[in-house]
Structure formats: structure tokens, C-alpha cells
């Protein structure tokens, strides 16, 4: 799923073959500079001049590699999404115990290691319908398999409700991480103090929410 998405979003560029390894390194440097800038600024306020200064290339050099800043944003976001969904899928498919820890860990890794990208992606999914759709298409396979695992653990759960629970659990993780890393409000600042504590809190909430109802 993520492979196809990445390919769709980064159309084949014939000149890339000619550019060779050096060109690929420059492209990479531009993307990393952009990702770094997003750590401190909103994507709407980062300019091409900022990107060129940070990655030490000329404006002409930028346009040689990317047709526009929007194209750069698209490619960087597609890679971020691919990485996150890949980790989410791996966590869901892991057969060993500790499903809650694995899935919470996959999202925690994306947010804590790539804060600027995570924040930008969340803003884009809230502001633009096409980004909400990208996330939906990329994650629906993992979501369905998560539902199947939840259903196996809870025979009382109907299939459609297992899917609802899967969405609810992932939404719980994302909403918490948004508070900590994206909005950085008063509750978030405290929790950000320790990544381990945050992992524990998320897994704890997951376990409570996914638990079977107690008998009457």
C-alpha cells in the first residue's frame, strides 16, 4: 500500500537518471533541510529562500530538483506517511504479544523523531481533504488487520465493532500525541517530559479501552 502511494505521489522524473548520485544527494539535502525547517516553522511560512539557505543551494538549483515547493511538500509528506504506515503495519502484523505497546510505539516513534513532519502532516489532514484521504487509503489495510486481531482477542466483539474499536484506539493515540507534540498545550508539555512515560500512558489507555466488558 505505502509503496504504491509513494510512487503515485512522486512521479517519475526522467532527468533523475542523468542527475546521478550527486543529484540524488542534493535532492536528499533539500528534503532534509525542509524537514528541519518544519520543526521550527509552519509549512505555510517556510519559503524557498529559507530552504535554499539551509541546504546551501541556489534557487535555480532548487527548481532543477523540484518543480515547486508544493511538489517538495508532497514528496516529503509521502515519505513520512510511508514510514509511519510501514511501522504501523509491522506492529499490527507482529505475532508476538504486546500489540498495544507495538502500535503505540510505532506512532510515538514517528511523532518524537520527526516532530516537524508529524505536525505538518496533522495540520494538512485537518485543513485539506486530499491529505485526509491519503492517510485513509494508506492506513486502511493496517486498520482492518488490527480489527481482526482485536476480534480474535474478544469473541464478544462483532466484526464492524472491532473495526470501530481499531479506529478508536488509533484515534486515541493520535489525539494524545497531537497534544504533546503538535499543539504543545499545557497538558502536552508535562507529558512530553518523558517518552517512556508517554509510551506507558498510551499502552495503559489502550488496554483499558480494548478490555472486555465485565460480566454483570
Amino acid at each position: 500500500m505505502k509503496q504504491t502511494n509513494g510512487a503515485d505521489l512522486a512521479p517519475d522524473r526522467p532527468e533523475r537518471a542523468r542527475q546521478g548520485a550527486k543529484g540524488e544527494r542534493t535532492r536528499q539535502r533539500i528534503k532534509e533541510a525542509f524537514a528541519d525547517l518544519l520543526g521550527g516553522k509552519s509549512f505555510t511560512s517556510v519559503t524557498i529562500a529559507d530552504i535554499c539557505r539551509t541546504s546551501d543551494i541556489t534557487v535555480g538549483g532548487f527548481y532543477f530538483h523540484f518543480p515547486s515547493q508544493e511538489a517538495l511538500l508532497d514528496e516529503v509528506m509521502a515519505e513520512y506517511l510511508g514510514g509511519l504506515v510501514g511501522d504501523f503495519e509491522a506492529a499490527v502484523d507482529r505475532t508476538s504479544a504486546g500489540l498495544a505497546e507495538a502500535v503505540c510505539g510505532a506512532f510515538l516513534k514517528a511523532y518524537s523523531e520527526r516532530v516537524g513532519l508529524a505536525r505538518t502532516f496533522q495540520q494538512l489532514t485537518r485543513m485539506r481533504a486530499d491529505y485526509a484521504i491519503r492517510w485513509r487509503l494508506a492506513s486502511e489495510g493496517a486498520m482492518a488487520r488490527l480489527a481482526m486481531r482485536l476480534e480474535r482477542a474478544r469473541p464478544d466483539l462483532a466484526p464492524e465493532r472491532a473495526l470501530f474499536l481499531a479506529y478508536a484506539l488509533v484515534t486515541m493515540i493520535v489525539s494524545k500525541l497531537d497534544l504533546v507534540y503538535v499543539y504543545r498545550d499545557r497538558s502536552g508539555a508535562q507529558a512530553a517530559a518523558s517518552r517512556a512515560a508517554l509510551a506507558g500512558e498510551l499502552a495503559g489507555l489502550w488496554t483499558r479501552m480494548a478490555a472486555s466488558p465485565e460480566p454483570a
Partner: protein
Amino acid sequence: MSDAGASSPAPVGRRQQRGERTRLKIKQALIGLLNEQDYFDLTITDICQAADIATGGFYFHYPKKADLLDEVIREHSADFWAALDATLHYQDSYSALFHASTALVRAYRDAPGLVRCFNQLAMADRAYVDLWETAAANWVSQLVRKLATSPDGGGEALSETSAYSLLSFVDLLLFKIYIERDPALVASAGGVDEVIENVAVLWRRALIGRSPDPARLAYATQGKGV
């Protein structure tokens, strides 16, 4: 209000009433239009057409579009938090959360365009974030105190920080169901009453670590519970 009535003759009162009616018509027109169109694409002409008033009539009431939206958001926000505050009068925690879930679902379902617009504005304007955060933090701290004393509370109560993030969870889940309308999620969620109950069940489990008494649930026994 009574001062104005005393110092001026009756016609002014009628004019004021008519003015209020026009304002209400303009506000309702905006809420309706937001369900179909993005706020930034809306023109004052669109709003006046929908409200069936002259463009000059708009400017008599509001200096610009943003002032109209601001008034609508603040009024809806006040009504919404009043409804949530009322849920804290219930004795037991499940009733409180069930009614809070109901209030949230209604707010999202009745004015999805307005909720989307509020979220867009909150991305850029800190004032709208504060409007939400202040009221939310206040409500959550009352909720946590309520859980500590409610007859069906007990369990391992959560910190205020965790409780606050769970309100954000409910908010985001309903946003995905009623505003983004993710088809797979919408299909798995069922009807409004099922959403209200299942959200309340998950919310309570996360808050105090226990499911509600199954006898109080309508959908759990039909195999539609979560």
C-alpha cells in the same frame, strides 16, 4: 434593555426585535452555507442571498464577514459548553459521560460546517485555540472531581492530564465520523445512538478502567457494543 424601552417609544422596541430577527437570519444562513462551502470561499453576497436580505442590511449588522463568524462561533461555543457543564449534574459517572457524548455528537452533527471552520481557524488563530482549551480544561477538572465522588466511579481514576487528552480523543473521533466522514469508520460506527453509547463506554473505560453495568446499555446486548 428596560432603560432603552423607557426612554424611547414602542416603535424602537419593534425595530430592535426586527433587527434581532435579521441578525438571527444572517447567522443561520452562515451556518447552513458552511455545511456546503468553505468559509474562505463564501462571499457576503452568498450570505445575503441565503438570508434573503439586502447587502446593505448585512453591513448594518456586521462590519465584515469575520465579525459574523466570530459571533456565531462564540454563541455556539457558549451553548456547547453549557450543555457539557449540565452533564456534570448527573450523580453517576456513566450518566455524565453518556450525556456529554450526546452533547458532543449533537454539536458535530447539527453544524458540521461550523465545526470544520472552527478547526481551520484554530490552526491559524491562537484566540480560538484558547477559547477551546480554557473551557475544556475547566470542564475536565470538574469531571475528574466528579469521578472521584460518583457512586459508580471508583476504579483507578486518571490524572487530569490524561482525562484532558481523552476529551481530545472523543473530539477527534467524532470529527472523523461527522466531518471527515471516513467511509470505513462511518460504516463501522453504526447509527447516532450507537455512536453515542459506544463512545461513552470507551470514554468511561479509559477514564476509570471499568465498563458500565451491561444492564444500562442498549447496544451491548445486541452484539453491537464495543
